[in-house]
């Protein structure tokens, strides 16, 4: 057993750190650090900076302009980016559609779409879920019917994250209703500018706009936009989900957020002393820190097994459950740390350039909002209940 990083890996970490320091605008890092609302340009700025360095497509093989990094390098890279308060890389084109096209797409599709994902000409969104099809994804109802050289698509998608920024949506549609649900699904690429596509915002419980409903009414989609074979879309869909779940442990985010919690606890006072020194709070914080320490090691164990060629199995479901719960617990402690100052709700304060003095300490204002927003972690990407079903079935054979 050797739990240290190799000298090459350490050197890589230094290289990444130096790059991030150089390439990440300090104004953008400050927005992320202080919980300001990010707009499309913020994501694009970081996306372009990474692409310019050739460090964007870390889930793609080297032949397809990927970084060719080992799982350990990916881990280091993510950790450095998050620690420096870089915005997240929007995953839909890069980490979801990219790998699917590389595996199942035609040569023409790869040639056309992959470079446009890298250059950010196309912003993608994920059109899987529907009002009636959440955990039971295969029960989706959106239909695509062949008419000559195109499909006509009708239906509704929902929870479409950042769909209001998207140029394209990859989606699952029914192309055969006479067979088992999983056998009649196809994977289609839909131009969001097509007539018949309507995007409506869904305001979330924290008052923010991040997800959308997408209505599809007689939308014409060229047959060329089918990925893989007709009625074989479920294979693409599941392949994509394994990518959605990698990195879902969110170790880097959890570490960054734990550091933030420690800072807050040092600054907050309880009975005239730093909250960090309060035995009860210190114990709560220490327990999460222990969970995180174990989860990070658990994650590294899977990462290094993956580096040795093992396929990700139910471990990724375990990591998803633990990782999301730990992140939720940290946001819970953050809101509790600031006591009454978790109450103020001033959405304007999340805009860049808000000049009023903060209410309470400046770090307090986004904390309740973040706590509520993070409830999503255990719902999406396969809910934590569904992950448990997977573990029970695949690993425990129950």
């Amino acid at each position, binding site marked *: 057993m050797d739990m240290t990083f190799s000298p090459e890996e350490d050197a890589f970490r230094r290289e990444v750190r130096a790059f991030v320091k150089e390439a990440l605008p300090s104004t953008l890092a400050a927005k992320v650090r202080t919980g300001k609302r990010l707009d499309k340009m913020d994501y694009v700025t970081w996306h372009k900076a990474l692409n310019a360095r050739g460090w964007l497509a870390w889930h793609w093989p080297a032949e397809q302009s990927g970084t060719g990094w080992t799982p350990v390098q990916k881990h280091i890279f993510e950790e450095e980016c998050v620690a420096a308060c870089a915005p997240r890389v929007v995953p839909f084109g890069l980490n979801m559609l990219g790998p699917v096209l590389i595996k199942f797409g035609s040569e023409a599709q790869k040639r056309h779409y992959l470079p446009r994902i890298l250059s950010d000409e196309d912003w993608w969104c994920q059109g899987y*879920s529907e009002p*009636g099809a*959440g*955990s*039971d994804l295969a*029960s989706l109802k959106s239909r695509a019917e062949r008419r000559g050289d195109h499909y006509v698509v009708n239906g509704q998608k*929902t*929870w479409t994250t950042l769909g209001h920024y998207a140029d394209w949506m990859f989606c699952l549609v029914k192309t055969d209703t006479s067979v088992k649900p999983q056998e009649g699904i196809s994977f289609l690429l839909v131009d969001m500018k097509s007539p018949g596509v309507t995007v409506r915002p*869904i*305001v*979330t*419980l924290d*008052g923010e706009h991040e*997800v959308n409903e997408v209505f599809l009414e007689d939308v014409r989609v060229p047959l060329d936009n089918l990925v893989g074979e007709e009625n074989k879309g479920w294979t693409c869909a599941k392949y994509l989900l394994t990518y959605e779940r990698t990195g879902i442990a969110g170790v880097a985010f959890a570490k960054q957020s734990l550091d933030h919690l420690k800072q807050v606890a040092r600054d*907050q*006072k*309880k*009975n*005239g002393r730093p909250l960090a020194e309060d035995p*009860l*709070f210190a114990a*709560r914080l220490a327990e999460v820190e222990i969970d995180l320490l174990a989860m990070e090691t658990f994650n590294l164990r899977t990462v290094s097994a993956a580096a040795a060629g093992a396929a990700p199995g139910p471990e990724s479901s375990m990591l998803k459950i633990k990782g999301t719960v730990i992140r*939720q617990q940290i946001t*819970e402690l953050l*809101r*509790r740390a600031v*006591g*009454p*100052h*978790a*109450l*103020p*709700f*001033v959405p304007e304060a999340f805009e860049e350039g808000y000049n009023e003095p903060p*209410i*309470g300490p400046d770090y307090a204002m986004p904390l*309740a*909002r973040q*706590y*509520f927003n993070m*409830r*999503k972690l*255990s*719902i*999406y990407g396969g*809910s*934590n*209940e569904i992950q*448990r*079903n997977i573990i029970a079935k695949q690993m425990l054979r129950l």
Partner: protein
Amino acid sequence: MDFGLSEERRILRDTAARFIRDSYDMKTRHALAASAEGFSRDKWREFAELGLVAALLPAEVGGLGGFGEDILVVMEEIGRGLVVEPFLATAVLGGGLIAELGSEAQKAILEEVIAGTRLLAFAQGEAESRYSLSEVRTRAERRGDGWLLNGQKSVVLNGDSADLLVVSARASGAADDEAGLALFLVDAAAPGVTRRGYATVDGGHAAEVGLADVKVGEDALLGEAGQAFPAIERVVGRGLLALCAEALGTMEVCRDMTLDYLRTRKQFGVPIGKFQALQHRMVDLCLEIEQARSAVMFAAGKLEASRPERERALSAAKNLTGRVGRLVAEESIQLHGGIAMTWEYALPHFAKRLTMIDHQLGDADHHLERFIAFSQAR
């Protein structure tokens, strides 16, 4: 033993429930929460006309009760309706302090409070005081035949709309001494008073209140200077009971909505409530809510008991409603799935209120420590 409600209290509960059901749907509630003051003065007057404000105050000052059970009954309905009118700030805290300590002249103010025409707020918390009731840095200095107040109050519930503020200030002693506190009635429009109001996460309103050389007369002093702490603690105790009762009402709505959803939402061809993984969690919610209700009833029964008995029971109730409240808020969102992440759906608003109740008058940890302290003092 009898855990049932008396006839009067049943009527009180039904009155509150009926009014809220008939005139306080979610659309109305959201519109009120989004208005400038965060609630409606007209609605407040209507609540007052129904006797719901009077029910929270004792008969000596023109109220109709003010016993633990009255608080329980009224505030539970307030929680069930997710009502944003200032029951806690005006009736329980502000009104409670005047009823407890006021001179005859001061108590006369309560007539207007009970009529719903005058709003109060308790300006107690400060930037660094967290949940402590004794940590007060706002100063009260004698000036001629009156007082000069200086300081900053933070997250004052409904402080932006109150006509009259009940301000705690230090007349003597160190920053965290229980001795040396005084309470003053300060006109919100008095020179030197500044207020910055804002909405809160749960649809309520609060304010940062500044006091810069605010001059008040001797008649503004509530009770004796330096002796206010015991009354503050007693009235905050009533506030704790009010919050716990509100939490119970809120939890039950979360429970009922979640149960209903488990029965109707279908995935994999069956209602999701058929999955045993969810059934057991739903069962735990129901069980824990009964536990919380029991602790709150216990506290209601101890409201007039000796200090350690009373405070221990109140802290037990607030600790348990804090813990169960979090469980109910988080689980009811989780068991719903994505739909509970939306503003449009009612459930998350109940979950947010439930969560924020733990940030008012002391969270579960604060009351865990108090419970230990008062258990040892018994």
